[in-house]
């Protein structure tokens, strides 16, 4: 009975999510390509792909960019702004909470392609780009954001898109704190900052840590948002690992090399994932 009910769902997941993981391991040890000799009869090449990845510098560069992307957009940007939004929106007596909450939710709700498109005009070069117009009011000269500061640009875009997820997680956690505890702290004369530092944050430590793990995992594989705006460029300045994998596999047709890069990304994510599953301590 269990097999009949659960079987089809598990077969689908096994075929299209688990099997590709195993297949990636095998492909990463071959010289499989999309065209030419390697396409029909890929040869076993041992760890040659991994050696190439680790010595070429390009892949290391992409890992560094991914780390930078995660640290600045997810761990700093989304976390701080999401926490700020959650703290403000959980205060008592604030009007229009629904409107403010909905506005912050919008970037997360729209498809990633629309999110990127919206920033194409924001980041547009010349005096007419929206961001440049804003900065012009404080006397800053127009900047070609995606040319001059491509990493900063995609970091801002990804921060913007992820504030809502952090806000939702933290709002739920903060609402779970007993009002009395916060009031007690305030009556004892603790200031806003002290309450946050010594009461609120310690009490939502669990959800905060879970959020940081989850956002690190999802940010490590962000693809469309970046690819739409920069396609990894200019040069390789925004070639984060997910874009490295795509371009080497489907632009340069080096499926073996792309698979090896996939395996390394998977390894990193799965270590984080196992930590997440253990910490989530969900009831089964």
């Amino acid at each position, binding site marked *: 009975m269990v097999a009949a009910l*659960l079987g089809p769902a598990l077969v689908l997941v096994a075929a299209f999510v688990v099997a590709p993981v195993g297949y990636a391991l095998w492909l990463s040890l071959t010289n499989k390509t999309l065209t030419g000799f390697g396409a029909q009869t890929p040869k076993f090449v041992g760890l040659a792909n991994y050696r190439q990845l680790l010595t070429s510098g390009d892949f290391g560069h992409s890992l560094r960019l991914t780390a930078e992307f995660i640290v600045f957009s997810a761990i700093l940007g989304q976390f701080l702004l999401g926490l700020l939004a959650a703290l403000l929106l959980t205060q008592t007596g604030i009007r229009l909470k629904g409107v403010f909450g909905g506005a912050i939710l919008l970037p997360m709700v729209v498809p990633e392609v629309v999110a990127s498109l919206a920033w194409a005009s924001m980041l547009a070069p010349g005096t007419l780009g929206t961001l440049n117009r804003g900065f012009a009011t404080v006397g800053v000269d127009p900047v070609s954001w995606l040319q001059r500061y491509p990493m900063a640009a995609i970091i801002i875009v990804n921060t*913007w898109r992820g504030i809502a997820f952090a806000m939702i997680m933290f709002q739920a956690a903060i609402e779970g704190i007993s009002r009395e505890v916060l009031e007690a702290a305030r009556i004892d*004369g603790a200031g806003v900052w002290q309450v946050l530092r010594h009461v609120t944050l310690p009490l939502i430590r669990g959800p905060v840590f879970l959020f940081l793990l989850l956002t690190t995992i999802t940010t490590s594989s962000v693809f469309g948002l970046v690819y739409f705006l920069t396609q990894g460029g200019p040069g390789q300045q925004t070639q984060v690992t997910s874009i490295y994998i795509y371009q080497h596999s489907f632009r340069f047709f080096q499926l073996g090399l792309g698979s090896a890069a996939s395996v390394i*990304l998977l390894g990193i994510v799965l270590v984080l994932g196992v930590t997440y599953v253990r910490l989530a301590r969900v009831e089964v």
Partner: protein
Amino acid sequence: MAVDQHLAASRGSVATPRHRSGRRHRAAGLTRRALTYLVIVVLAVFCVVPFAWVLLGSVDSKAGLYLRAPHLTLHNFLRFFDQPTTPRLLVNSLVLSGGGTVVALFLSMFGGYALSRYRFFGRRTLMFAILLVRVVPPTATIVPLYIIMIDIHLNNTYVGVILVEAAYQIPLLLWLMKGFFDSIPVGLEEAAWIDGCSRVSGVLHVVFPLSRPGIGAGALFAFVNIWGDFLTPLVLLQSPDRYPISIGLFQAFSAFNQVDWGLLTATAVLYMVPTVLLYLFARRYLLQATVTGAIKG
């Protein structure tokens, strides 16, 4: 208790110098309130402003890459439905998201029921394995997946993309469904069995109808996720007549020489409206998901 004592103790010492001057206190409260509103408004504006150009461009007869006051027109939307290629994008998106949602939901409802009601060997491990599968990033499996799809002749087909998208949504849906079914007392099902229902018709006539809000929320969630996906169709579809809107938008945007900004932004608006609406809808829906009300009522 400890908190109560704490509260009582602090009440005793209210007359500290800090609280003596009421007016200064009220002024500080006002400043704080104003600051709160200021920061929250800035955050909300930051989140919404990038959409201004998309919305205004879609109703502008001479839309460009830059934000400007539009020459109002609905022509861009009419053109979307008039053009030979663009309505096709919408149909494809609906087929792929609708198909993927139906497959994922159908399989997850029965799978979730098994996880909720049967105690079998390895169930706990399986639940955690499903949770772990959720973190496998699609970018890291897309290369082998592409070769698998070629090998089983599902590359560049609707069916292929639908099955893959369903597989991506199933882990989360299994967990969601299991949770909803857990909250329906087995007693209700047993009552149906006593009334002569078989196990299967008990599921169909008692469990599923009672979890309708949860199932609906799960369906909307899966639909929105597949609707917005970019990477899977980008790799697994090669014929332009099968592209969903996400790929169509990307291609139109990347046509460096001649971008039709009015049509592009109108397409983007049509593309984002369903998810925005469904999301508002699902937020309310998720609140109703607690079946306790249905049982008590």
